[in-house]
């Protein structure tokens, strides 16, 4: 594997909140390198620092220490213009779709923004509509029923699908999905995951899943990173980490998930 295919990497990435005796090290000298096109999962419990790491990757939080490299270059997002450039390459889907939208903007405005951000602001209106229609049909939403609606009129699963339609229009190189399916039921979860995987094939992006659901991580990813107390305790291919875990922490996480073919041992809590 040559170094060209590394899309995002980090060296000694650290985030500290507070100082003195109230100091919390949320992300503690983490090293990683994500290859282009592979599906990555970062698995950890609540409070393990996985969401903070997601924010660092997105550039929503500043690093306390360490460097992040994007496509081999040191990432520089000090100015707002640089941030906008960077966000064309990396987009995110969060856990709660209800709070992800501007509640005063209609759905077509949400999608038009995406076209504009990709530099399609001067395209003729018909072409914009065609693009929006294509994006909506990709996620099984009917564009004609949506145009005059506001995001709150959609169900959670529909909102999450609209999020994917946005990503479809934006065509980022990296998609960061922070617990994308934890608020929706198992059946829609299958739909969302299938769509994300189809989208990956369609636009060739690198998805990064941040999740506490080790089952989901096993199902979707090529490479799994297990995070505990702000550090990666174990990483490797999904089969290696999840079927043959080495660290006691990984084993505990696996043990805590209810399974179908193995006894769920409730005595170990």
């Amino acid at each position: 594997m040559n170094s060209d295919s590394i899309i995002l990497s980090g060296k000694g990435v650290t985030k500290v909140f507070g100082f003195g005796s109230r100091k919390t090290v949320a992300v503690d000298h983490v090293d990683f390198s994500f290859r282009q096109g592979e599906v990555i999962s970062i698995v950890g419990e609540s409070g393990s620092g996985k969401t903070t790491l997601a924010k660092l990757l997105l550039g929503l939080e500043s690093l306390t220490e360490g460097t992040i490299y994007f496509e081999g270059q040191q990432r520089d997002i000090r100015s707002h213009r640089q941030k906008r450039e960077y966000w064309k390459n990396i987009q995110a889907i969060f856990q709660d779709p209800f709070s992800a939208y501007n509640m005063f903007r209609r759905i077509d405005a949400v999608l038009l923004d995406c076209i504009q951000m990709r530099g399609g602001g001067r395209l003729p209106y018909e072409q914009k509509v065609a693009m929006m229609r294509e994006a909506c049909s990709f996620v099984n939403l009917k564009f004609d029923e949506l145009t005059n609606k506001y995001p709150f009129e959609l169900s959670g699963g529909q909102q999450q699908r609209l999020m994917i339609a946005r990503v479809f229009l934006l065509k980022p190189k990296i998609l960061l999905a922070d617990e994308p399916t934890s608020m929706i039921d198992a059946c829609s979860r299958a739909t969302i995951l299938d769509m994300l995987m189809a989208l990956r094939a369609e636009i060739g992006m690198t998805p990064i899943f941040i999740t506490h659901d080790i089952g989901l991580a096993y199902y979707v990813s090529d490479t799994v990173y297990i995070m505990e107390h702000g550090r990666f305790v174990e990483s490797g291919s999904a089969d290696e980490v999840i079927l043959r875990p080495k660290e006691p922490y990984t084993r505990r996480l696996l043990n805590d998930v209810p399974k179908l073919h193995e006894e769920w041992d409730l005595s170990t809590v």
Partner: protein
Amino acid sequence: MAKTVLEVRELTTRYITRFRESIYAVDHVSLKVDEGRSLGIAGESGCGKSTLALSLMGYYFPPLYYTSGQIIVDERNITGMDPDDVRKTILGNEVSYIPQAAMNALNPTRRVINFIEDVIQAHRPETTKREIYDMARERFELLGLPPEVLEKFPVELSGGMKQRTVIATSVILSPKVLVADEPSSALDVTSQKMVIKMVMDLMEKGIIKALVFITHELPLLYNVTDDIMVMYAGQVVERGTAQETVFDPIHPYTRALMGSIIVPEAGLRGVKLAAIPGTPPNLKRPPSGCRFAERCKYAMPECRAASVDLHETKAGRAYRCIIPEEDLRRLYKNEQ
């Protein structure tokens, strides 16, 4: 023959919207839970699971209205009672309910013990504070919660701890039936396990006599409950033991649901998840025939003609489909 703790006969409840439309979210649902057993209810969002949970308590408040049917808790019919009586004598004493965000029930400005005092005094006004404290302490110790929690404020507790505190509080008067509606969905796997352990303990230690557990997480349901009932668009579509429903489903909907299970077990990677196409029907205008016909890959024109009854195959096992069981099994076999 075990005693039946909770029996529901043909219960129908509806929501009335402000445009005077009726939404029958629970449509002729019957169920039976014997002493020492647990029943799981599975289904998609909006299939009426949570409405059923609310309806089971016999406590209706607008926009939810009781329409028909009976709820019998320990040989006592609780339908048709005055809502205020239900609240004082049934809730907490006979049937207790834990919603998904149970932890939000705690009052942030008061200590846990004060919260428990409120609960007990609402139902048994004559209890003294000393007695309440002893009751709470004893119950917390029995359930493995540190008694120091009683003196704390909710902000000092973690999410899982808050959830367990509320569960312990809701069963402090030893109700016969506990209805748990997604008690662990908002938690991560480790806290989830602690909450589940506690609910199982309640059954094992005889604090509650029967459990109704609602969740969309099928692997969890399979591990927690003895029986599983699958709901779709307000109706029961299949009923059986956990083993039968998960590994040997009869109804096409149940089978489709089983295709969406994700568990970290070998051989599941790269298996394409079988998402069910389409969306559930609008319950304001439910379709006349089988409600699943629109999304069912085995649907025939007859499916949409007349409503379908629940066929009982043996005691406790039933499914709602016009195709006979043997034919369905043959269809499934041909697919493999």
